[in-house]
Structures are given as C-alpha cells and as structure tokens.
C-alpha cells in the first residue's frame, strides 16, 4: 500500500480499539447499493521508479525547441536558490497559516511579499496572491464595482489591447454577476489605446477603465493620459502590468496625477517556471482606502503576549471562511508557493538586478525584431514603443509559417490570427534575457528558410 504505513498488526489493534471487526464495518453507514465497484478503468499501481521513468520520457518528448513565445508567460532565468529553498519541506508541505504561532515562516514571507509588490507597483497594499493574472483581473473588476460606489452601471471599459485570454476569462467569470465589459478599440497603427478611442465612451457611466502596460501586443500605452481621463470621469483605474517591466516603467501608483487604484498582473515572470501555464500567481495591489474591498488573504504585523513583533492573517472579515456569502471572493487556497518563490526571486535580483533583466529583455527583443525585419517581406506591425514583445507582419499567414518553424525546432511566437482574423499574418514575438545572439540568428535563419520554401 503505497504511502500507507499500517501493517496487519496495526490494523487489528486499531480495529480492536474501535470495536469493529473489519475495516469494511466502518462504512456501515453507507447505503449498500451505493458502494463502488472495482474501478476497473484504473491501471495497476506502479513504483516510483516506473512512474518516474514514464514521466521523464514524456517530459523529454516535449523538450528541445527554441522558444520565442511570450503572450502572457515568459521564460526568465530563475536562480537555483529560489526553488531549492521554496521546495524545502517547511514551505512546501505546510498548510495555510491558520496557526500563526507555528507558521511565522510562511507569514513573514507573505508580509515581505506584500511589501515587495507594493514597492514594485508603487501602491499602498498588496494581498497574498490570487490564482493567476487573468482570474486576478476578474477579481479586480469585481472589486472595482464594489469600490466605486458612485457608478451604478456595472460596466467596465476593457480595451482590445488587453490580452484576449484575460478578456475572455474576465467575461466568463464575471458574467453571472451582471458585469458588462465594454470594449475600447485598438489603434491599428500604433498598436495602442488612443484617447480618441476612449472619447467614443464619453459621458457614460463606467465603474472602471482597465489599462494594460505593456499591452498584449508588447506596446507601451500612454498610461498617464489614460489614467487621468478615467479619473476625471469618476472611474477607477485597474492597471494590468508585467512585473519585470515595472523595473523600468512608471509604476502604476504614479500613473497620471493620482495613480492607478487597483493593480493586478501575472506574477510568473518573478521566478516561476513556464511549466505549461501553472502554478503561477496573480498579484493584486491597491490604494489603502480600498483594502477592505480586496479579495484574498492579507497578512498583518502585530505583537505577541510579550510585545514581540509577529505576523498573522488579518482582515479576515473579507474572506469566505468568516463572511461566507458576503465575502469579497470565494478564493481560499491561493498560489502560496509560487508567491514564496517570487519573494526569494525579488530578494535575489534586487533593484539593479531586476532592472538589468528588464533591460536585457527589451534589448534582445529589439535585436530580434531587427534580425527578422531584415528579411524580405517581414515588418514590424505597430509604431508604438515596445517592452519585450513586438508584433511582426509576415508575407504569409502565421498559421502556415509557425508550424514550419516548429518543424525546424523554433517555436516562433503567437499567431495573432487566433484572436483576430485581421491579424492573420501577424506574430507576437518575445526574446527575454535568456535568448542569446545565437538564438536570435537561429530564428532568423529558420524564418528565412521557411519563407524561401514557401515562396518556391
């Protein structure tokens, strides 16, 4: 019995103490006709050795390609210390810190995380993580509706420049609460959200405007103008940001005159491996005045019986286990371990390290764009400045080019035609600090070969 320690002797002794004859007797309150059959569709158990070999084979089956995909998940160097510490049993196998005195390790780590995120985003407070960036944005939208008491419409402005997967998730999660997401169009030249697009919504009641920086196309928005526009009209501003980019870019707390009100984003770039999409974590910060509307766990610093500082769960009256149907969200289990990793990552990188990572990402992507647009028929689709992604227009449909590149071991980017037929010849590419000059040349060579083939 894998992982079960009881020997036949143990079982006898335990049954005797219970006063039962067989284990089966312990299930005598279950109606007989409901008892399960033999679960025949399950395979027989294997040893750790066998399962490990099987999974190692599968893992290596997928490995080996050179990847230029971003689109919401980014390959960064992760210092070895991050996960060697995060997977220490003490962090890895602890539960949510309900017994504060026996959980100071987790609790202090979260308090440090909250401080790090507040500093990175320029906001007052942070929670202890939500599931991911996309579900985090849904929570932010719901939170804005609660926080903006003046707005009654249940409507939120959601630019097309926001990651389509985020838009979809927000739609799917918020639909049942009657939230309406109103789209703001993308400027097809610059690749950004222009004031002109906003003015179409002038005079209507919206609870909030969502601003993504960089936006889904890698382009930098004029966040100051957008923020001030929204604030001037009584809307809250929800910022969706890439945390690596924040090492270089104006933190949302300083957008426009007042700063964003709520900030969310995908925490994955902060030391969390790509890992097929999870576990990542969504981060969520806000102004102090909105903290009671924020969902998720929050840690506070307090003192113990002897006056020594210590950490504990606080503001629990927002949470489902106390407030039940009146809670700010149903979230319970969050993404603690990934958040722990991010805390270690940010501490290791420090202000200068994170800035340099961001700078290399930007520079490498610019180099990639230069190398690829040097090919005939390949051009940059948008004019706005970018951070570490960019949209390239190809001479043929991306849906043809990308599989051909993949066959050559290059995962060449994201096919924008998936979300928008008008961009069927466009690819969103990304080169982080992990991509070398040789990697970029390899991509350029492969693309040249693929385009030549197709032409031929």
């Amino acid at each position, binding site marked *: *019995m894998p*992982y079960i320690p*009881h020997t036949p002797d143990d079982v006898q002794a335990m049954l005797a103490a219970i006063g039962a004859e067989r284990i089966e007797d*312990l299930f005598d*309150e*279950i109606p007989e006709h409901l*008892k*399960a059959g033999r*679960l025949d569709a*399950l*395979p027989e*158990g294997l040893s*750790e050795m066998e399962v490990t070999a099987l*999974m190692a084979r*599968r893992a290596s*089956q997928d*490995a080996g*390609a050179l990847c230029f995909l971003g689109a919401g*998940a980014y390959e960064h160097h992760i210092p070895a*210390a991050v996960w060697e510490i995060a997977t220490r049993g003490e*962090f*890895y*196998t*602890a*539960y949510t*810190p309900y017994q504060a*005195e026996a959980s*100071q390790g987790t609790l202090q780590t979260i308090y440090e995380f909250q*401080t790090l995120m507040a500093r990175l985003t320029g906001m007052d*407070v942070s929670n202890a*993580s939500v599931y*991911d960036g996309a*579900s985090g944005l849904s929570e932010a939208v719901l939170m804005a509706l609660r926080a903006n008491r003046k707005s009654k419409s249940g409507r939120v402005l959601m630019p097309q420049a926001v990651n389509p997967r985020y838009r979809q998730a927000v739609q*799917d999660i918020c639909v049942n*609460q009657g939230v309406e997401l109103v789209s703001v169009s993308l400027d097809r030249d610059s690749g950004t959200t222009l004031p002109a697009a906003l003015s179409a919504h002038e005079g209507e009641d919206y609870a909030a405007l969502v601003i993504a920086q960089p936006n889904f196309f890698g382009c930098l928005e004029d966040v100051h103008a957008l923020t001030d526009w929204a604030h001037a009209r009584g809307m809250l501003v929800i910022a969706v940001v890439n945390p690596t980019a*924040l090492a270089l870019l*104006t933190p949302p707390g300083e957008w426009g005159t007042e700063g964003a009100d709520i900030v969310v984003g995908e925490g994955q770039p902060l030391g969390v491996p790509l*890992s097929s*999409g999870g576990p990542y974590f969504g981060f969520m910060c806000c102004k102090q005045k909105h*903290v009671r509307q924020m969902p998720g766990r929050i840690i506070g610093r307090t003192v113990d*019986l002897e006056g020594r500082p210590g950490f*504990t769960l*606080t503001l629990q009256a927002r949470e489902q286990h106390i407030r039940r149907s009146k809670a700010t969200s*149903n*979230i*319970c*289990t969050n993404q*603690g*371990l*990934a958040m722990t990793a991010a805390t*270690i990552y940010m*501490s*290791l*990188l420090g202000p*200068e390290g994170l800035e340099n990572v961001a*700078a290399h990402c*930007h520079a490498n992507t*610019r180099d990639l764009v230069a190398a690829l647009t040097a090919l005939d028929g390949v051009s940059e689709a948008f004019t706005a400045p970018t951070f570490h992604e960019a949209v390239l227009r190809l001479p043929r449909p991306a849906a043809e080019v990308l599989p051909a590149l*993949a*066959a050559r071991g290059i995962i060449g980017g994201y096919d924008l035609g998936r979300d928008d037929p008008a961009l069927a010849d466009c690819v969103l590419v990304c080169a982080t600090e992990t991509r070398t000059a040789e990697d970029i040349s390899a991509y350029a060579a492969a693309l040249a070969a693929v385009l030549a083939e197709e032409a031929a």
Partner: protein
Amino acid sequence: MSTPDTRDDLLIFERSHAGRRAMAQAPKALPAERLAAIPDSLRRRARPALPEVSELQVVRHYTNLSSKNFAIDKQFYPLGSCTMKYNPRGANRAAMLPGFLGRHPLAPESHSQGYLACLYELQEFLKEVTGMKGVSLTPMAGAQGEFAGVAMIRAYHEARNDQGRTEILIPEAAHGTNPATAVMCGYTVREVPVNRDGDVDLEALKAACGPQTAGLMMTNPSTCGVFERQIDAIAKTVHEAGGLLYYDGANLNAILGKVRPGDMGFDVIHMNLHKTFATPHGGGGPGAGPVGVSERLKPFLPTPIVGRDGDRYRWLDRNDLPQSIGQLSAFMGNAGVLLRAYFYARVLGREGMIRVGEYSTLAANYLLKRLEAVGCTAAYPERRASHEFLLTFAKEAKTLGVSAMDIAKRLLDYNQHAPTTYFPLLVPECFLIEPTETETKEALDAFVDAMAAILAEAKNDPELLKGAPWSQPVRRLDDVKAARELDLVWRE
C-alpha cells in the same frame, strides 16, 4: 537566564544595505542607449526599493524563516477537511523535470504530446474514481472548481430556458467557499439546517426546495465528519424540484474507492487534488480543483480539455465546446499540480486508491475512540467517523474556562499541529480532526497522549493553556491589534 536571546527576526528589508547585490544573478548593465526607444515619460524615476542583499543573505534568511513553520514533513498535522497527508517527493521530482518546467503553455501540440498524454490519462482516472462522465482539469483550486460547477448548473438551467431558479441550497455545516461561490455565480443562498446527528434536516430541505431551486451544494461525508446517510432522499428531493446536486469534493479522501459521487446522484463535483491526491499545500497554495460532471452537464465544462484523435492528443476549446462556461484562467490550470497528482494516481493505481478511503477512515475512527477514552467529547458520539471527526470542548470551556483555541495553542507546545478549530460553526468550541491514512499508529497515539496531558493541565493549571504556546518563535499573537492597526507593508 542562561540562554541569550539570539532570535533574529529581521525582515529581508532590514538586511538591505545600499549598493549590495547578488551579483551572479544580475545580467550586466546595458548602455543607456539600448533603452532609448522607451520614452522618458514612461520610465520609472527611481528603482523599486527591493532589498539590496547578497545571495548568502537571501539563502540564509529564507532557510531560517522556513524553520519557523510546522509542516507535514516535520509534524503530525491533523487539520480537519484539509487532508494533510504525505506529499510524495517523487511527485515533486517528476513535475520539476526540466522538460516539464520549460514547456510554454502555448507551445504547439506537436511539442506537447508528452504533457497532454499525462493530462488526458488524469482526466480518465478522475472520471473513474468519481463516477462522473466528463472532467475538466482547469480550475486552480477547490473554490474555482466550485465556481465552475455552479456556473455549469446555471448554464444548464439557462440552456433549457428554465428561468427563475435563483437559489442555491447549502447545509449550514458547509465550507465558506460554498456560499461565496453561489453568490459569485449570481445566486442567492439559502441555508439548510443540520440535525443533531450531523445529517441534513430532510424536512427542512424539502420545505426549502422549490421552483426557485437551482441546486444544492454539499459535501459527503460532510464537514461534521460523518457520512450523510439520507443521500438518496436528498438527491431525490432536489432532483424532483428540478435542481441539480453539487458535490464539494474536499472530503473525497474519505470515500475514495468506496462510494462514488456519480453513483450517489451528484450532477457535478469538484475535487481538491491538493488534498485527496497528495499534492503539497505550499503554505497556502497552489491547489487544483478539477470538475467532473454527469452526461447532461458535459457540454458546459470549462475549457480547455484534452481530447484524443487516434494516438494524437489535442486541446479542446470553445470551438469544440460552444456551450462551455469558458475559461477561468489565462492558460490551463495549475499544470505542475496536475502532474504531481498524475504521479500519485499512477503510483497508487486501482488498489491504492481503494486503500486511501479505507485507511483514512480507519485512522479517524481509531483516533476518535482513543480520544474519547482519555476524556474528549465527540460531537456525534453515535456516529462512525468518516476520515475526520468533530470533538467539542464546550464542557471544558464552561467548567474550566479553557477554550478550544487554548487547547489548540497548547498542542503546538507538544510539537503537534492543531486540528481545525471552530469549524463547522454549528458545533461550539470544536476541533475537526483528520489524521489521514499516511500517519502511523504511533503518531496517532502520540497525539492522544498529548491531548490527555493537556486535558490534565486544563484542570490543574489552566494558565498553561491560556498562555500557550510557550515554545514557538512567538507567543500568542494579538489578532485584534493586527486588524485595528493595519500594518500590511513594511515602511522604514
């Protein structure tokens, strides 16, 4: 005092020293002109005030911090409803294989067959153990699974144009995520009382059911630690009213291989893989909350799902499932958690799965009887324990002035993690105790010994309990101050 106070409680920020850095981690600085394309107005004015510390300082700080935690790897951790069982290290190694860690979530299917094969098989396994007809792995924790489940209930009624179903019924013992979820799905919540035996009050349920009933959410065994014996009648009542039955799978460990939610009549369920499938809790997360559904709810499953064409695996998305409730996250759930659960399922296999329910139930009933023998009071003394059970210290609170909280804190001094306290709310001064199948009899006996000792202390020296814990990095913390004088972010 013979031991100097060498405790070192600095925050990582208090170790910061201007100009210091973990050099091996930072790429070299680039010349400013490489950033010239970014307009000044969008540039940050000052670097974020992350700590400036050396690599050794970071390693030492978080290594020492970690040691201030209780954890399954160190202690017995009988937290009711949380299933703190052994988290196989092999699952961690397998999920951390470079090939899995490096895979981009949007990698083409041609470069994803190994990963997809694992997920597809996991879907199949979960169908079999739950008796459901379709599974989606995408929810990221139990609560998100609940959301998906209730959203499917709603989508189902809406697809049938069955208007006016605005209410979800929830037994009062339910976990807080249940009512919170119902509200997030746009429903109002009606609580159903629980009777003295821990079963749902069937008459009250019947009275509550009606054309406004969208469904009932329940756990079975319930969080009262007992199996709901009238499950057939409950299912019949709700179904006859046109409602659907939602199964909160947090307690699935109790019945793995014994009863299947699908066979009990549930239409939709979520599972907590971070409980039943032994993936780690990581100090709060991540989890994974796959949902399973009966045939009629299959069209509404959240996407993506893994499908199979011959020997190729592929993603099924909204194009394949046009009625899907949609997408709950940017990609596809907590892949790393799913891989760990897959590992666990493969190691256990058919026989192992069946043993889980048997031995977790054995351990709980044994522990209950032994605790009763040393003077503890069961909340439902006439009932079998499921994989967990409830004690009440109402008597001790009244006669000795010690609360369940005091006993919980004192347990920490005995190097035992406390059970879940004050949940479910309907039982006063309660402990919800879940030993799991992976703890030895000796570990259970040691817990009994500690409880016996504490009950004696409660009589002879109650201050020992009220002042507890005495042996942890901090004494009891002031939660009221924490909430009143909010200190959520460190400021120099």
